[in-house]
């Protein structure tokens, strides 16, 4: 797989305190740049970091917010489950045979590159307005990279592992459980990372586009009412959430890959 997933191809993070400090400096620099932009553009157009944080605190304190967050969380979690489990199942099935993976790969790449948002009307028509449509949006985005990565993980199992399992006279189930699963795990987790990110994106865009509740909906309303502070506050919340989740998954991913 030459194209998809290359955006995950970063060098492994550094260890050591100085490395972490450097990153903190970088984050501080970004916050400072934000502050400068705020001074240039003015508070009516872009709030300062502190302003955004304050607004976020206000929003979080609002009793209605819990309902929105719960709505988004529910949709996201369900979509994620579908993306990860469905994607894994399909990917493994496709990956077991050389021919099926060869047939499927270009189709998956085409689907990946397609602006899936343009399929939203179809989904709305099929699922109606409501949480199932949002879940469908999220799952649609997330399932494709999970399928691709799982498929490739199975396809690329080193043949010598399977030969060793035969040489040690393992039963088929034992080979599957004790050799194929650990051998494919690092690649599958990488797929999960990408699936997580895209499922979140899909769910949010779904809410922006067609929903009466949820954080995406709050964003759209804030845009229509011309409230940059609210937009920025919500964006901040989502960025922090997504980045933290991503770092946890990245740590797992790196740990698995370091052993390979």
């Amino acid at each position: 797989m030459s194209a998809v997933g290359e955006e995950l191809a970063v060098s492994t993070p550094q260890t050591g305190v100085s490395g972490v400090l450097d990153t903190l400096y970088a984050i501080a620099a970004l916050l400072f740049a934000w502050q400068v932009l705020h001074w240039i553009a003015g508070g009516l157009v872009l709030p300062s970091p502190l302003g955004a944080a304050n607004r976020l605190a206000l929003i979080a304190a609002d009793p209605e917010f819990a309902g929105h967050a719960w709505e988004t969380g529910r949709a996201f979690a369900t979509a994620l489950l579908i993306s990860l489990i469905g994607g894994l199942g399909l990917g493994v099935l496709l990956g077991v045979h050389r021919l099926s993976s060869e047939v499927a790969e270009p189709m998956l790449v085409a689907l990946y590159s397609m602006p899936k948002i343009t399929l939203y009307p179809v989904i709305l028509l099929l699922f109606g307005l409501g949480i199932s449509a949002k879940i469908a949006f999220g799952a649609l985005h997330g399932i494709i990279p999970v399928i691709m990565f799982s498929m490739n993980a199975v396809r690329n199992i080193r043949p010598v592992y399977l030969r060793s399992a035969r040489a040690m006279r393992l039963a088929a189930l034992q080979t599957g459980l004790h050799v194929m699963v650990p051998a494919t795990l690092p690649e599958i987790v990488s797929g999960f990372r990408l699936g997580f990110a895209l499922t979140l994106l899909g769910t949010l865009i779904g809410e922006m586009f067609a929903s009466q509740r949820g954080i995406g909906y709050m964003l759209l309303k804030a845009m229509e009412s011309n409230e940059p502070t609210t937009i920025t506050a919500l964006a901040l919340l989502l960025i922090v959430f997504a980045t933290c989740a991503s770092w946890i998954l990245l740590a797992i991913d790196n740990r698995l890959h370091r052993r390979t």
Partner: protein
Amino acid sequence: MTAHARLQGITRTYPSVGAHPPVHALGPLDLELQQGEFFSVVGPSGCGKSTLFDVLAGLSTANSGTVEFEDKPVTGSVPDGIGVVFQEDASFPWLTVWDNAAFGLRRAGLPEREVAERVEHALSFMGLRSFARAYPAQLSGGMRQRVCIARTLVARPRLLLLDEPFGALDQQTRLLMGDEVLNLWRETGATVLLITHALDEAAMLSDRVGVMSARPGRFIDLVTTGWPKERDSTIVAEPDFGQVTARLWSLLRAESMKAIAGLP
């Protein structure tokens, strides 16, 4: 004395794929391995050495002929009592050295106490005891091959098959590993079949060396070295060693040129 393992009239032809014609890779070939002997197979590239290996181990089925191990036919699955070490590093990167060695025994359901005992012994024997908690990725190529050998050893194989296990290592390490394999051979009393492309290795380690022709592989000759059982790599100093190696090369030289000419 009946042979420990016997191949008779073995041929292997790979079916045609797409436009390529079928490939007659091996045979017809006969081989008898005596109990407890150290037998090496040398031959030019593409002569079917690895195919021979797979057929004997039960990893692959011959198109004709019979394979017997301990007087029982070998068909499609690896018989109990045969241990295999492959050319590539087959150590599982997700397990520690200890867990790698214990892997086969645990899957076979042996009680943990017995597993621990055997793994202890094998790791010590292969000089890996202090690396028991390390992961293969932290070890050199030679060490990883030792892990693979240890993993095979714990099952107490009666016939040990090694397919160019030291191919990826440098010469000095190879010589030392050769000494270790000889120790192993003496200690376990197993019959050993070693596939190698290194003539000096075959000459130094074996009781007999089978020289294969270019594809389709057949044995041109079987050279008996006559070394004493208590030998090691210092045997390179013996004048007979040069003679054995020379004999092997004189047999192989023409075959090797044929093999190179035939390569696409």
